[in-house]
C-alpha cells in the first residue's frame, strides 16, 4: 500500500467533469512528475487532493497513510502531512510572513505552540538557503511579491512544515532560470526518505533540476501513461502527439 493512493478519482466543478478516473500511487522517498497538455486536469488534481471547495469528488478515493481524506477539511489534510505548492499563491495583505509562519508551525506543534527561539533560527536558516533577505520576514504574505518571490515563499513553507507528501503545482511556470535553480535547491534539500513528492509541470525544464524517478502523463482527466526517467526524454523528443499515437495504437 502506497503512502498516498489516488484511486479511480472522478471530480467535477459545477457541471464540468474534469477528472475521469485518475490512479496514482506515491510513496515517501519517491519523486514523481506529472505532465500533460493544457486542460488535462493537472491543477484540478492538486486542488482536489488538497480539498478545494470548488471541486466535488463524484467517484473514487484518496487515501493518505491508508485513510480516506475525502471527508477532511483542507486544514486537517495539511496537518495530516499534505502540502500544496500553489501555482498562484494569493496575497494576504497586512499579515507578516513571520506571523503567518509562526501560526502555521504552531498548528503542527504537539503542544500547539512552537518555542519562538528555535522557530526563528530555523526560519532564518531556511531563508538564507533560499537566498531570501531577512527583511522579507516582515513583509505582508505574498503582498506585492514578484513571481519568483512567491515561489520561494512556497518552498520556504514546505521546508518549515515538513510534509510527508508535497505537491508542486507548476511551480516552475513564470520563473527565470535563477529563481528556478533556487527553488530546485530547496526542493532537493527536502528530498529524502521522509518526503514523497509530486511535481506537476508543463515543461521538462524543471525535471533536469529535480530528477524524478517516475513520470505520469495526464490526458483528458486520466493518467494515460507512466514510466521512468526515460519517458521524460521520449516525451521531450516526440511531444504529446506521440503519446496520443501510442494510445491509439494500443486501442
Amino acid at each position, binding site marked *: 500500500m502506497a503512502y498516498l493512493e489516488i484511486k479511480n478519482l472522478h471530480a467535477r466543478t459545477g457541471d464540468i467533469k474534469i477528472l475521469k478516473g485518475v490512479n496514482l500511487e506515491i510513496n515517501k522517498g519517491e519523486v514523481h512528475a506529472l505532465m500533460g497538455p493544457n486542460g488535462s486536469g493537472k491543477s484540478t488534481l492538486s486542488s482536489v487532493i*488538497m*480539498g*478545494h*471547495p*470548488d471541486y466535488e469528488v463524484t467517484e473514487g478515493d484518496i487515501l493518505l497513510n491508508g485513510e480516506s481524506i475525502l471527508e477532511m*477539511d*483542507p*486544514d486537517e*489534510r*495539511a*496537518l495530516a502531512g499534505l*502540502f*500544496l505548492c*500553489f501555482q498562484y*499563491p*494569493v496575497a*494576504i*495583505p*497586512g*499579515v507578516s510572513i513571520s506571523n*503567518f509562519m509562526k*501560526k*502555521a508551525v504552531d*498548528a*503542527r506543534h504537539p503542544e500547539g505552540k512552537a518555542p519562538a527561539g528555535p522557530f526563528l533560527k530555523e526560519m532564518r536558516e531556511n531563508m538564507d538557503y533560499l537566498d531570501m533577505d531577512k527583511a522579507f520576514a516582515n513583509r*505582508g*504574505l505574498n503582498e506585492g511579491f514578484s513571481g519568483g518571490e512567491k515561489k520561494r515563499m512556497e518552498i520556504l*513553507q514546505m521546508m518549515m*512544515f515538513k510534509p510527508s507528501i508535497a505537491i508542486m503545482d507548476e511551480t516552475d511556470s513564470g520563473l527565470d532560470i535563477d529563481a528556478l535553480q533556487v527553488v530546485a535547491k530547496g526542493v532537493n534539500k527536502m528530498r529524502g526518505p521522509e518526503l514523497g513528492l509530486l511535481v506537476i509541470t508543463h515543461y521538462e525544464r524543471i525535471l533536469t533540476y529535480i530528477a524524478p524517478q517516475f513520470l505520469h502523463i495526464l490526458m483528458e482527466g486520466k493518467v494515460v501513461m507512466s514510466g521512468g526517467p526515460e519517458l521524460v526524454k521520449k516525451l521531450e523528443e516526440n511531444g504529446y502527439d506521440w503519446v496520443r499515437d501510442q494510445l491509439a495504437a494500443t486501442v
Partner: protein
Amino acid sequence: MPDFETDSNLVQEYKYGFFTDIETDTIPKGLNEEVIAIISAKKNEPVWMLEWRLKAFRRWQKMKNPDWAFLDMPEIDFQDIHYYSAPKEPVDMKEMDPELLKTFERLGIPMGERDALSGVAMDVVFDSVSVGTTHKELLEEQGIIFCSISEAIQKHPDLVKQYLGTVVPPGDNFYAALNSAVFTDGSFCYIPKGVTCPVELSTYFRINAADTGQFERTLIVCDDNATCSYLEGCTAPARDTNQLHAAVVEIVALENADVKYSTVQNWYAGDEEGKGGIYNFVTKRGHCRGRKSKISWTQVEVGAAITWKYPSCVLEGDGSVGEFYSVAFTNNHMQADTGTKMIHVGKNTSSTIISKGISAGYSSNNYRGLVKVVEGASNARNHSICDSLLIGRDCSANTFPYIESEDDSAHLAHEATTSTISEDQLFYLKSRGLSEEDAASMVVKGFCKDVFKKLPLEFSVEAIKLLEIKLEGSIG
C-alpha cells in the same frame, strides 16, 4: 435596587456582561431642571456650572433628535432614564468597596498603586462618578492635572471655565446639548507647557446600573510644546433593554502640542437577535488651536448596539495635523455610523484618514466623513483611505465621503475599497493547517493592521485579542 436579570448565555458571549451588586445612590427617572439641580448639588458644583447646565438644557429642549443617519432605532424616551447613579459608599482608593474592587479585577483594570510600573495612569468612571485615579503623585510632580471632571470643576475652575465647551459648544448638536445639561463625570487632563506626559493617561468607563444613562464629559488640554497619549476603554453589563451613552470629548492642542487619543469601545452590543445593548452616541472633537499642533484619534469600535460618532479635528493653527485611524467591527444586528470630520482652516494643514470597517451577520457598518477646506486655508492636504470588509451575505457596508473645498491649492486624495474575505484566501491559509476561523481572523487582522499599529503597544495587543473574540462565531 434596580432589578437584575442577566441571561447566562449573554454573559458567556460577552465577557464583561456581568453586573455588580452594590448599593447605589440613584435619583428617580426623568429629566427636568430640578434633576439637573440635584446632579449639580451632588457634585458640589459652583453656581456658574449649574447655570451652564441649565442653559444647555433649555437649548436641548428646543432641539430635535437628528435622523439623517437613517439608523434603525426606536424612539428614546428621555424621561425613562436615570440621570445619576453612584455607588453609595464614599469611594476611597484604599477602602474601596470589595465588590467594586472585584469588578475591576474582572475587567482587568489595575486600580492599586502597586501597579505603578504598568505605565498607565487610570481614572475609572463607574456609572455617574469617577471612583479613583491612580498615579496622582507622579503626575503632580510634573504639574500634570489628571482627575475627574467633577474634581476639576472644584479645584481648577479657571481652567475648566476657560476651555469647557469651547470645542464642542453646548448647542452643537442634540446629544452634545443633552450631555452639557446632565453630564455626571469624566476625565480632565491638563498638560502644562513643555511637559511630555510620562505615562499613558487612561479612563475606563463602566455602566453598571440598569436604565441609567452615562453622560461623561472629558476635556483634555495640551499646552504649548506638551505631549500626551490618552486611552479610553468601555464596558457594560448584558441587559435586554437599551442604555444610552452620550459622551462629549473635547481636546485642545496649543502651539506645537501633540495629543494622541485612543479608544477601545466594547460596550455591550445586544444579543444575537439585536435585543439590548448600548446606544453609543458620542461627540468627540479636537481643536488644533496652536501652530504645528497635532491631534490623532485612533479608535477600535467593537461593541454597542448602535455607534454614532465622528471624532473630528478643527485644524486652525498653521501647519497643524489631524489624524483619524479607525477599525469598526459590527456583527449580528449592530449598526455603526462612524467616521470623522477634518476641517482645514489654517495654512499648510494636513490630515490623514484610515478607516477599516468590518461587517458580519446582519449588521450595517457605515463610514461617513467630511474633509472641508475653508477659503484661505492654502496648501491643505488630505489623504483618505476607507476600506470595508464583508463577512457573509447579509451584512452591509457603505462609504459616504463628503469633500468641500473652497481653496484651489488643496490636495485631497480619497481611496475606497469594499471586499469580502475571498474563498481563495481562506483555502490558501487552510491548506497551511489553519482552521477556518483562524484563517478568517488572520485576514481580518491583516486588513486592520494599518490602524492597530497606531495604538499604544499594550493596547494594540488587547485590541487584537478583543477582535479575535468578536470574530469567533461570525465566520462561516
